[in-house]
């Protein structure tokens, strides 16, 4: 595994940016891919995190505090060392059509891979809508105020706002909580999250059911056509 030293962090309540200096380069990380990140001992498994940004061995992750590992990351001092492997998963660009521009719809930590996508493929971005519940999140996004959709302030979710800006010519590329993804148009591309063990397609922990049978989110995804997924199984 590659050593990842925490060199910067900026948090607001349960969300935060974490920048790591890696001891080795990642091999051509692309948008939509994730790394498996692990603490030295507990918890035992590595957990998947989408790449928010990557440059010169500097890896930035946008993390929501949910469990033991993320809790540990939030409470870690600068200089703390973690371990990562990857990047894994199929880059979004290999799944989507390049003929269209996309509305990037993110919910919570789901904005991470969308940010990396907009860094690498700005010409494919039509509009960005990043949804959060509370206004405190503004602290973390000084430059991006216009893309933020704060439910608490406007009473609108990203899906409500989408209805106003949607047109047939643009595609939708979304990552976020399941209820949000379920409310998107049929032909949207949705990036799924799953509990992962290996991250490389061997352990069968991250299964989803599709019209073509069981697929692994880590290897076959994380991006799928919304209409291809059997949502009732999730």
């Amino acid at each position, binding site marked *: 595994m590659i050593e990842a030293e925490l060199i910067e962090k900026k948090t607001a309540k349960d969300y935060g940016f974490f920048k790591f200096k890696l001891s080795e380069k990642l091999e051509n990380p692309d948008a939509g891919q994730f790394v498996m990140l692990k603490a030295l001992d507990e918890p035992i498994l590595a957990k998947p995190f989408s790449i928010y940004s990557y440059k010169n061995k500097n890896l930035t992750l946008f993390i929501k505090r949910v469990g033991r590992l993320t809790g540990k990351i939030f409470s870690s001092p600068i200089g703390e060392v973690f371990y990562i*492997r990857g990047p894994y998963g199929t880059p979004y660009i290999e799944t989507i059509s390049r003929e269209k521009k996309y509305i990037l719809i993110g919910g919570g930590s789901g904005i991470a891979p969308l940010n990396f996508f907009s860094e690498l493929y700005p010409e494919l971005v039509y509009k960005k809508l990043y949804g959060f519940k509370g206004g405190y999140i503004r602290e973390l996004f000084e430059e991006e105020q216009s893309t933020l959709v704060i439910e608490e302030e406007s009473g609108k979710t990203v899906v409500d706002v989408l209805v106003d800006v949607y047109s047939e010519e643009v595609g939708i590329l979304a990552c976020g909580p399941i209820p949000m993804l379920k409310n998107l148009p049929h032909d949207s591309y949705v990036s799924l999250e799953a509990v992962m063990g290996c991250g490389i*397609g061997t352990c069968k922990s991250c299964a989803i059911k599709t019209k073509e049978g069981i697929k692994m989110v880590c290897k076959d995804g994380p991006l799928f056509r919304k209409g291809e997924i059997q949502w009732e199984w999730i």
Partner: protein
Amino acid sequence: MGVDLSVEIFGLTFKNPLVLASGPAGFGFELQQYLDISRIGAITLKTITIMPREGNAPPRLVDTHGGIINSIGLQNPGIKEFVRTIAPRLKDLKTIKIGSIAGFTIEEWKILGEEMDKIKEIRAIELDLSCPNVEGKGMWAKDEELTQEAIKAVRESTDKPIIAKLAPDVTDIVKVAKKAINAGADALSIGNTIEAMRINIETGLPFLKLKTGGLSGPAIKPITLARVFRVAEALKVPIIGIGGVMNWQDALEYAMAGASLIGIGTAIMVDPQAPLEILHGIESFLRQKGIERFKDIIGIAHRGGF
């Protein structure tokens, strides 16, 4: 001084004692990209059943202190598809391949044994008698009579070496082990995951869709190690020690307790390269102790130690 890590049991020579345990390594093909499988003694393939199985609904995995709990539920393409699409590719994995099967009836055990028998690349057959993640009849190894019947059925269907994968959480593992050997097993895998669960206190519901699953990883090592030790004390039979091997120290403990081969499951999921580090550690340890052959430490705990 070179250290000889090879192990010969049931007519096969393993270049070293490490076996990728059934499940976490899949059929080896995806893993091959991240781990040079030719450097590992053997791989036990993901368990195959008669019918294709989707596995259980997610979530199928949750971590816990000292381990992980999974309820994959034997997701596999079924024996027909295995024979058609997986078996022809097995020659690309340059190590000993052990097939793994799970029947739900005696008839199924027999058919699975026959089908595995026909695949040249499969050098031994492991009977998964102890999967906690299938409803109904997954846990043959909890009952010594059922264990015996399943092994007999496979014994009649093949001349290949057969390995009975036993459950560590039984009242008297020595009793089950004896029945397994009497029924014709050439070796024993001890053991498998142990039924376990976690509850999400926010929702008040179990984390896993199946409610309970199988615990693996460091938490189970002391438990399984004791079973390996007990069986090795009572029987002269090759044992594959499996459960919570995360590093070379763990692997050596199993060998000293009497395991000829050592299975690695969870550690591969944590880090696909882990088996190589374990191998390296075993080799350095033996060199430092001035022991030329790995074989010499197998069961040393029963012989008064060093």
